[in-house]
């Protein structure tokens, strides 16, 4: 590429990066300001003296409705929800993908097509039947119920990821393992799974982001004790106090976003690598 073009390219990339980073900057700087400073200064100015008061309040004492104990409870709810939901949906996706690509059976193509169809069903459509189902299972308004919903709704996507990745693994590898005396599980655990690191990272990150950021299911299928952080954040922002505490709201939003940001920073390179490996085509 010639020099001037390279310059243009970098300029475009820089502008795009700034465009996306600006809101983050505003949130971060606002969360570190005092209310006086917010009222006096402008949106883009740096905080005069850095204060973590807003963060403390958002975490521990801000009111979310009638209760005033911040987001901490919601945060741990989300952690307790996201870990099993991500692990179970990813594990089932890997298993489904393995079966649909390497142990085809009569009708497996149809099963896959139906799963794909599941990807395009808007979740709003599911709310009422899902509520009914949870009721039957005795899981209504519980953490287990919420995990169940996320697992069920995540399987279509995770299956697609793994199935498309496994299609690229040569069938002869499976045949060789069968001749070596390995069965369904041994082949999966010893041969296929160790090859799955790129797609495993992609799926874990993808599912974590989806489930952590979910608001709809959290709002509809949980209550009081089991509400996730997105619902907490919403409650906090909507609780009417005499003044809008922008710094607390910003700190709360950042607390809600922090885990996903952390995941991307720590594991982002695997995500990019997994995508680049042609893992998520189609």
């Amino acid at each position: 590429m010639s020099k001037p073009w390279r310059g243009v390219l970098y300029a475009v990339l820089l502008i795009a990066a700034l465009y996306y980073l600006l809101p983050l900057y505003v949130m971060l700087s606002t969360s570190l300001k005092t209310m006086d400073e917010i009222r006096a200064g402008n949106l883009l100015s740096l905080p005069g003296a850095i204060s973590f008061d807003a963060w403390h309040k958002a975490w521990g004492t801000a009111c979310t409705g009638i209760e005033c104990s911040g987001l901490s409870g919601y945060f741990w709810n989300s952690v307790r929800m996201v870990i099993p939901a991500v692990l179970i949906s990813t594990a089932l996706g890997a298993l489904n993908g393995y079966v649909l690509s390497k142990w085809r059976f009569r009708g497996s193509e149809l099963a896959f097509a139906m799963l794909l169809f599941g990807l395009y069903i808007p979740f709003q459509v599911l709310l009422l039947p899902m509520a009914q189902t949870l009721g039957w299972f005795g899981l209504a308004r519980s953490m287990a119920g919420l995990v169940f919903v996320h697992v069920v709704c995540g399987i279509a996507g995770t299956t697609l990821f793994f199935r498309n990745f496994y299609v690229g693994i040569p069938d002869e590898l499976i045949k060789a393992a069968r001749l070596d005396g390995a069965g369904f599980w041994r082949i999966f655990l010893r041969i296929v799974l160790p090859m799955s690191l790129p797609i495993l990272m992609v799926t874990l990150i993808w599912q974590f982001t989806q489930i952590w950021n979910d608001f709809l299911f959290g709002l509809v299928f949980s209550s009081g004790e089991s509400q996730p952080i997105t619902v907490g954040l919403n409650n906090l922002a909507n609780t009417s106090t005499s003044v809008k505490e922008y710094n607390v709201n910003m700190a709360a939003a950042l607390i809600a976003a922090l885990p996903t940001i952390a995941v991307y920073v720590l594991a982002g390179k695997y995500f990019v690598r997994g995508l680049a490996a042609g893992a998520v085509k189609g």
Partner: protein
Amino acid sequence: MGALAIKNVTKRFGDTHILKGIDIHVDSGEFLILVGPSGCGKSTLMNIIAGLESPSGGEVHIADRIVNDVAPKDRDIAMVFQSYALYPTMNVRQNIAFGLETRGVPKKEQDEVIARVAKMLQMDHLLDRKPGQLSGGQRQRVAMGRALARNPKLFLFDEPLSNLDAKLRVEMRTEIKQLHHRLKTTIVYVTHDQIEAMTLGDKIAVMKDGVIQQFGSPQQIYDTPANLFVAGFIGSPSMNFIPAHLASEGGVIGVSLQSGDAACFAPLLDSQRYAAYVGKRVIVGVRPEQWDLAADGGGLACKINLTEPTGPDTIVFTQINGIEVQARLHPRDARSPGSVLHLRPDMSKAVLFDPETEIRIG
């Protein structure tokens, strides 16, 4: 004792018939070659022998036992795949050990087997590498090692050399042959390389379109091909197929050959067996090396169109009965294009085919 018998095996995928009644019998210790063009069903047949696919009909016997319902791992076979199929996340040692481990071989015994195989294939220095860190030839070696780790009754090799460059292929070919001499295990070996087929096999099965065209020793197949396909497939350069009229001259049956203005009558040996075809069109098959220089000035005066020196021989191209014919001559005897050579076919080795059915006559 029969090591492998395939009886009327068929295979369908939906409506497409891939194998149409395959019959093969291999004795213990024999080296069987399955050869045929791409897509003729060789790998499918191998998978059926291995039990990785089930036949739509027919029986597979290994060591005189029907194995149709026996799982692949219990058939006492080892297979080398075309793509080698090494487990990419395991190193060479683990690749070889995997099959032993699943069979519950004790660790100490595993180590002994790995040491034996590594020594046999001279790959001690590769044991701790992953397949991705090996060259094509080394991967091929490891794939063989994995198969050798067990002492199976039957080895299945599916085009094991087709991914190697020409020189390495020749080396490995010799090595496989030596290995077979040493181990004396029955081998079924798929290839579409007819030189591999001729050099390695005790028996050759030539396949086309899911049918065995001919099954016999390499020499049988070379000397008396069952039909035009087999005749053309085995041998390089290919057999010349010269269309001709079968005629009887003074009680001797033979064919007339014509090149440019020259013509000659080539009498056939044992010619009475062709009596039924006198007066009819036939195809005369003469291999390139079955032409001799007629030093006496007899034979057929042929104009040379092209020469291809190969080193030990020179292939000369000429025109006989309207088709291009190749003759393999000693370089000393070859002449440059444009000149005329007197060639005489060795009719004792010539084979005749019916142009309609393409089957050998007599």
